[in-house]
């Protein structure tokens, strides 16, 4: 097997939705302290639906590809649907990742959740904290890896 699937390489070399949304409604930033990678997700939300999404990533090829794929998976979806996206779905959509790179897809899942959490917090929307990763904990090394 090549290191990465064609889909990974495609999303890595031509990442979708890369950049910043200056007037985002929710922004989430997560990182993995071990590998040093950082992912930032910007959401534009209207009527509980993700109207636009952009990301910035400092990280490896699969981190960039995972963020790109994650934005594709949630764009136009409801918040509910976006929160349901798992790292496994990201990996599957990418056609697989090497075992030691699975944590990169976890970053993508977490960055979505972090951005939604930020949106909830900004708008004082109550939510079930147990459903969101503890981002400070995460900064100290992703607990899901």
């Amino acid at each position, binding site marked *: 097997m090549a290191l990465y699937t064609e889909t990974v390489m495609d999303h890595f070399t031509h990442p979708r939705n890369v950049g910043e949304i200056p007037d985002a409604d929710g922004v989430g*930033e997560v990182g993995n302290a*071990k590998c040093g990678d*950082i992912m930032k997700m910007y959401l534009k939300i209207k009527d509980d639906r993700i109207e636009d999404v952009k990301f*910035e990533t400092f990280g*490896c090829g699969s981190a960039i590809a995972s963020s790109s794929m994650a934005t594709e998976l949630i764009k136009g979806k409801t918040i509910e649907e976006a929160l349901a996206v798992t790292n496994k779905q990201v990996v599957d959509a990418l056609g697989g990742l090497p075992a*030691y790179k699975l944590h990169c897809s976890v970053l993508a899942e977490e960055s979505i959740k972090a951005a939604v959490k930020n949106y909830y917090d900004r708008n004082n929307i109550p939510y079930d904290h147990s459903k969101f990763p503890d981002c400070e904990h995460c900064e100290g090394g992703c607990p899901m890896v």
Partner: protein
Amino acid sequence: MVYADNAATTKMSRTAIDAMLPYMETHYGNPSSLYRLGQEAAEALQSARETVAACLGCTPREITFTSGGSEADNQALISAARIGERKGKKHIISTAFEHHAILHTLKKLEKEGFEVELLPVDPIGTVTAQQVADAIRPDTCLVTTMYANNEIGSILPIAEIGAVCREKGVLFHTDAVQAAGHLHINVNEQNIDMLSLSGHKFHGPKGTGVLYARQGIPLTNIIEGGAQERGKRAGTENVPGIMGLAAALKEACDHIGENAAKVSALRDQLIAGLSQIPHSALNGDPVHRLPGNVNFCFEGIEGESLLLLLDQAGICASSGSACTSGSLDPSHVLLAIGRPHEVAHGSLRLSLCEWNTQEDVDHILKEVPRIVAYLRSISPVWKD
């Protein structure tokens, strides 16, 4: 394609391939066999041994052929440890930025009760003979320091370190895997007692290596069995591989000066060019440096993305040493010279050989700045 990862491995030379082919195709005898086909193979082995000995300035009997640099490193350290043990000496001195073939063998010896002292490396990536002199104790049985570092290219003062060891009566081994064929070696002038090298780092074959051990130093087998290699390394000899290694080493040593001049000129252009990139820093000794080695840290850049995009641009390069890929930890070498974790993740090693061209350098100098700028542009942590 621009191949700029010659420290990881090299393309085989035509000379090396041509030296192997006859032993693959027709001279296939086992060197231990009595009949001519076998004795011809034994003679070929002997001539390879003489060639390698001439390149190192030692005698053929002091050469043991192994399956690579790692095996040679392992056997050198185990042998020295056994010698030390018999004399009750169990202190070993090395450096913090050795190859894993050294570091992991030292770990194993530590578990057996040896005390291993890794000398710190200064910020430009070197270790001095004075540091070694200060560290040697009455119970030191071995000093092992690399000749040149595989990641950052700094060249250590091997002759001086050797002199210190000689004076204090301590065995001195050097991992010359990156130096052999690229830097002058003479084990006598340089006071080297044991030395490792690997065939595939100078256009020779993979899976071949050499352990030099000065006459009188008893080797400990790490592979037991038949009486090959004077009983010190069992297994039917890889005759084609050994012929390829010897031919490649001789060719490299015969052109060592001219290759170094050519390659270091290209290297210096790369160093000058990449230094223009904002927030970049050269790693390793700017002066005492392998002719082909260029190593930079770019702040705000992650190494793997950089390598993958360079690959897309037709450039083969590496970040940290090739064999640590698959691990998430940043290079122990960059940490040893004091680079912080996040910066160490963003390193780029380009390693040239005499077959690289001006066009290669121009291409690299066009692509690297572009890709660094792009990756910074999509990074959440980089805002200039």
